[in-house]
């Protein structure tokens, strides 16, 4: 069997490409090295849809950011994932830095970002009362937004699956060969043949690129450490608050999340190891200190978790995205660091169009453009929620008390395609374990449901696939 396109990587870009490709009459597969989609860079980032003022005009980063940002709201309605246009501020603390803000404003306008303006003094502090008194002025970007990165990536994946894309999890692509005008991929225990490839492998996209292309690339993972605070602090700021950007990125931000938590971070430190997603004492301390410059007296005692993501930073003279056909039928999305999440829908669309053109594909009439999310009962009006519970009592049985997630939602998460197979898979889909007790109460119950619904013993369940087993056995049979 020969595929028309294989997407490598189940992150935001890969899933967006797969979903856009699934509009066409093509045979498509997606290979993901992890046990689930959205387990790499896409799951650990600032969750911001950037307005697009930061990227240098004329770059792919600028183009895809602005395009992606414009697509995002309608996409969020089509695919039913959480998105909110909350606006952003880039602070400067010294009148002397005003020219830098103006430069950003100018850049943004060149990139086609709407509504940008500089706010100062009283207006700034009226808009965001929690800001440091030292904040002198800010670039205000009303089109900046926040999104659920899991929600978005999983929505894209589910919609792709609805439209016939096959998902192969636990399938790291270790080899790509050119044979008879096709690509032959070794992906885990499978060998797959395809006419075209989309390389959306995040921090590993250089490795995949180098398997096929003459020109060699190198991705240096750039870590970003974050702290997530309790929902009671989510209203501290309304907008995403940046500081003037530095060499390593957009600096440390303070932002509400779409779910109502407060997020601070990221740091920006290069790491040799492509899987080094560990937080560090220094990194967390730095993030907290820098965030405190924007918003003083942050209630850090309300931290519920901290995490680290890795950006796929391209080394060399240009760190612009590499997007396009790098070898015959081999399409790259390499170096997708910030604003990667914002750009993902536009990158996916572009690559799908390129491939469709190359393969002379036609759009299929059966394409399903919309996908409904698992019902989030907590957010529903009382009567709607009551009706759902009446129809399916499992929606009335609360498993995760902090986020008020019902058994019905968890069962749904397991039976969607691609569905949750691990504790983290459930957590990313329905937020069970995402709340203030971080799974303390609900983990054993979610494990029981996973075991029952998947038909596997609890002792085989994992936190996040691979060897991340949750239990070592039954009582009375352990020998240390």
């Amino acid at each position, binding site marked *: 069997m020969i595929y028309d396109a294989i997407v490598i990587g189940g992150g935001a870009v890969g899933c967006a490409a797969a979903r856009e490709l699934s509009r066409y009459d093509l045979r498509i597969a997606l290979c993901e090295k992890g046990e689930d989609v959205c387990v790499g860079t896409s799951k650990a980032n600032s969750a911001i849809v950037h307005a697009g003022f930061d990227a240098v005009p004329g770059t792919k980063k600028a183009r895809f950011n602005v395009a992606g940002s414009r697509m995002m709201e309608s996409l969020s309605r089509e695919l039913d994932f959480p998105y909110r246009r909350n606006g952003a501020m880039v602070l400067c603390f010294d009148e002397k830095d005003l020219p830098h803000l103006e430069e950003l404003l100018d850049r943004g306008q060149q990139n086609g970002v709407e509504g940008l303006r500089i706010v100062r003094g009283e207006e700034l502090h009226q808009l965001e009362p929690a800001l440091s008194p030292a904040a002198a002025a800010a670039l205000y970007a009303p089109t900046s937004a926040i999104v659920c990165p899991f929600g978005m990536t999983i929505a894209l994946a589910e919609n792709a699956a609805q439209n016939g894309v096959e998902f192969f999890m636990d399938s790291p692509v270790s080899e790509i060969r050119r044979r008879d005008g096709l690509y032959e991929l070794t992906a885990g225990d499978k060998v797959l043949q395809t006419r075209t490839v989309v390389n959306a492998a995040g921090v590993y996209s250089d490795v995949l690129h180098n398997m096929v292309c003459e020109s060699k690339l190198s991705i240096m993972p750039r870590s970003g450490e974050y702290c997530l605070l309790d929902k009671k602090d989510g209203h501290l700021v309304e907008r995403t608050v940046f500081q003037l950007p530095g060499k390593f990125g957009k600096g440390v931000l303070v932002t509400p999340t779409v779910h109502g938590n407060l997020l601070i971070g990221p740091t920006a430190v290069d790491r040799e190891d492509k899987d080094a997603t560990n*937080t560090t004492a220094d990194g967390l301390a730095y993030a907290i200190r820098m965030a405190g410059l924007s918003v003083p007296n942050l209630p*850090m005692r309300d931290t519920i978790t901290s995490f680290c993501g890795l950006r796929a930073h391209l080394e060399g003279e240009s760190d612009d995205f590499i997007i396009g056909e790098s070898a015959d039928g081999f399409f790259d999305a390499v170096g997708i660091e910030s604003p990667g999440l914002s750009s993902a829908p536009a990158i996916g669309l572009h690559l799908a169009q390129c491939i469709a053109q190359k393969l002379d594909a036609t759009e299929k009439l059966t394409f399903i453009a919309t996908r409904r999310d698992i019902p989030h009962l907590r957010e529903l009006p009382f009567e709607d929620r009551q009706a759902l519970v009446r129809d399916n009592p499992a929606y009335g*049985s609360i498993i995760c008390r902090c986020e008020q997630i019902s058994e019905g939602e968890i069962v749904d998460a397991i039976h969607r395609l691609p569905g949750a197979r691990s504790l983290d898979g459930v957590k990313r889909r329905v937020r069970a374990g995402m709340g*203030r007790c971080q799974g303390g109460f609900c983990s054993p119950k979610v494990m029981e449901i996973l075991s029952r619904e998947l038909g596997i013993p609890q002792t085989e369940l994992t*936190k996040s696939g691979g060897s991340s087993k949750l239990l070592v*056995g*039954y009582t009375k049979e*352990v020998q*240390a």
Partner: protein
Amino acid sequence: MKQVQLAIIGGGPAGLAAAIAAREKGVEDILIIERDKELGGILNQCIHAGFGLHTFGQELTGPEYAQRFIDRVEEMHIPYLLRTMVLDLSGDRVLTVTGPETGLIQIQAQAVILAMGCRERPRGALNIPGYRPAGIYSAGTAQRLVNIEGFMPGKNVVILGSGDIGLIMARRMTLEGAKVHAVAEVLPYSGGLKRNIVQCLEDFDIPLYLSTTVVDIHGRERLEAVTLAQVDETRKPIPGTERRIPCDTLLLSVGLLPENELSSAAGVHLSTVTGGPEVTDRLATSIPGVFACGNVLHVHDLVDFVSQEARKAGENAALYLAGARAGSRSVALEGKNGVRYTVPQSIDPENMDDTVTVRFRVAQPYRDAALCAYADGTLLRRIPKRILTPGEMEQFPLRKAELPEGCQTITFTVEEVAK
């Protein structure tokens, strides 16, 4: 809308004792709402002995202790709902409830007793650096897995925090065949009961490292090791003291937090020290008709005291339903000089019982000290104590007869005895 005289949120030791007391005082229409599949709360997973010495003069296991109250609830035909969760409580005592029997409904209660208990502080609250592999559990979660579900979370264990659940789990894991390599406590003293240090650690040769914490977590998928380091007086790790301990499990016993999201949503005024509602000697919160008891009010060390406190809450809810209201005056209670807080935070001098038990914890360990109560600066009474420790709750009986006329504030302090 369904109506009920008294709704009790939580069917653990606090909720059960409150229900029984309220019924004994004549409240007919009571509903206990419990989110788990059985009554008894966290006692069900506390299968070790040591409960009930004060109440029954016997050392019972947690389930046995709970059963005595459950039996009484059954005998009295007090209605309860299981697997049923209160999603919201409004300021006018409307409960939004969901469960398999009820579906999603609202209940109007004339009085409410908050008895939701507490939860464990998670890893995230400590910002421990490192990876986030499988094998990191709060001690209570591990206790549930082992004692109720019958699973072993790991074989080689390190425990961070010397709270009572951590100490109990050190012994439990050892008895189940695991090796507990260390218990690390960031403070220079343990937060657990002395008897648990002796019976759970010393009796099993499990080392307790004080002024020590976890500074790194290794292992990308399953936990492989933790790095421990000593800390200075400001709890900052001391460079050069790090050592790596291979393990597959890290249990956290780093504090309990009263679970007051519902109270908060209803507008109940919470204490920033206890994390629980501020209450009068009637255990009445800032919202009329809403009472609180047990670990939702402040974290207890012994369940016997939870039961005592909950009885009071039940009796007072009954009095409220019979028309009793607070008097016009209020005397504030406060803790100073080593007394972190008091429960209750105020008393009603006109209607108070002859003796009100004031409960609190001290901020640090003391030897040969005294607990003192002052009424507007005048010493009321002084109770000498050979040992005071933050791990053990103190009780100070405040007598109505002692209170001076017109007293405004009663202050509780620790005073060290000069040698």
